[in-house]
């Protein structure tokens, strides 16, 4: 597990995965940008950057698992770039808004369970 890292803006991930290396960023788009930058430095995606069927930009929380590698992974780059394009497209019609704490928590839980499922394997 030592060569894995979770890039996230989800506080629940930080709370649960204390033993894992976590890069915590403030904003959803920062999660994607950070991952893209890491892919350029030979990190590869473990989990797919798009979240299940929850639409990009709809869930304000996102976590992505990466692993360090020896060489550049083109598939990871293509996948993260496609995800960034989809995020931009969906953000266009999805105004940022302040959700209630309950909804925030629900979105955090959804993101957490996707990562639980990714790390289980």
């Amino acid at each position, binding site marked *: 597990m030592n060569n894995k890292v979770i890039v996230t803006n989800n506080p629940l991930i930080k709370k649960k995965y204390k033993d894992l290396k976590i890069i915590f960023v403030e904003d959803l788009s920062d999660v994607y940008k950070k991952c893209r930058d890491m892919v350029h430095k030979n990190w590869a995606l*473990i989990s797919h950057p*798009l979240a299940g069927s929850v*639409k990009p930009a709809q869930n304000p929380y996102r976590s992505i698992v990466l692993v360090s590698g020896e060489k550049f992974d083109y598939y990871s780059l293509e996948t993260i770039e496609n995800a960034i394009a989809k995020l931009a497209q969906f953000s266009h019609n999805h105004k940022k808004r302040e959700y209630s704490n309950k909804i925030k928590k629900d979105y955090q839980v*959804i993101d957490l369970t996707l990562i639980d499922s990714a790390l289980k394997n």
Partner: protein
Amino acid sequence: MKLELGKIKIDDIEFADETKVSSSTLYINKEELLELIREDSRIIDINLDIVHPGDSVRIIPVKDVIEPRVKVEGEGGIFPGFIAGEDMVGSGRTNVLKGAAVVTTGDIVGFQEGIIDMSGPGADYTPFSKTHNLVVDCDVKEDIKQHEHEEIIRMVGLKTATYLGKAAVDIEPDEVEVYEHKPYLEAAAEYPDLPKVGYVYMLQSQGLLHDTYVYGVDAKEIIPTLISPTEIMDGAIISGNCVSACDKNATYIHLNNPVIEDLYKYHGEKYNFIGVIITNENVTLADKVRSSNYTAKLAEMIGLDAAIISEEGFGNPDADLIMNCTKLEEKGIKTVLITDEYAGRDGASQSLADADPAGDAVVTAGNANEVITLPPMDRVIGHQKFADIIAGGFDGSLGEDGSISVEIQAIMASTNELGFNKLTARGY
């Protein structure tokens, strides 16, 4: 495996003293049913409502839709692994209450989604405005976690559908359809001159609110496998998928998979329908690679010349769709993909999150980003307050008069990727 589907036409549902089917009407003893489905101590309250096509009613947020069926002959029972035991299904006779449906609703998470309008312009976008629906609105104790809440509502829906299905045990069907799935060697030998066509059936399996079950097993835990189409008609696959109303496969849709029905339609005439491979849509890239490798291997092992591949959901599963497509094509197996599109409100954006030149035969079920205004309804069952925060909703979605402006992705099955809807795109 040979299954007879006995279809009993239902054109009305009413509450009554006894649960029975008579003269195409399904009568329901409300108290008896409530006693059965309230038994879970985590449930606070359940409301039952009957709605009909044409009613000025909006149901929101819908979790699942289930068709009442009952096994009258043969091994096993409906919804194996949940309601019935572990016996294999897909043989004998199953009776269906055609025209009736159980619709479950409940606020599992704050952003739950799924609209069924029984009349007005929204009704044209959902097949479930054409069925007579028993709506089950279930409230649970406050401290219940989301995954438990989903499970409670899922089980209440399955129990309700099973209870109603039992009313069809001794009824003579209006119509009987026969579906047979022969052993592979026999099936291949039957029409040696026709192309051997299979179906790759992708199941959403990513985690909380994104799950599908096969004989009670969470599909994320399976490796791709073979299944008889008749098993699916007996409820071997059920939905625990609450996300993306427009393109999730409700249990009703699994039971009535139109891809399977159409593959049977020209079987022995235009092609030889060999069988179904089910596969999952997991979170990690490694899982996606493994499942698509395994799917392609199975397709080759059963000797397919061509396959239809249907996706469930959007985004991350686009990667599974493309992997399945390219790997089958690499083995010389022709593919046709069924998906829907998120091409922006003007339809001008890239439709999928992944693509490949090998995917050159694609059927679309429509653009889920199209916007529609749904007029107010006389009655709302469920929780209309969610209109602003459903997928496809946006600030100001819910008008003061009760109208809702949303992308059609908020409407149940509007762009269903098994084609259980009316939308498509045509070139002129």
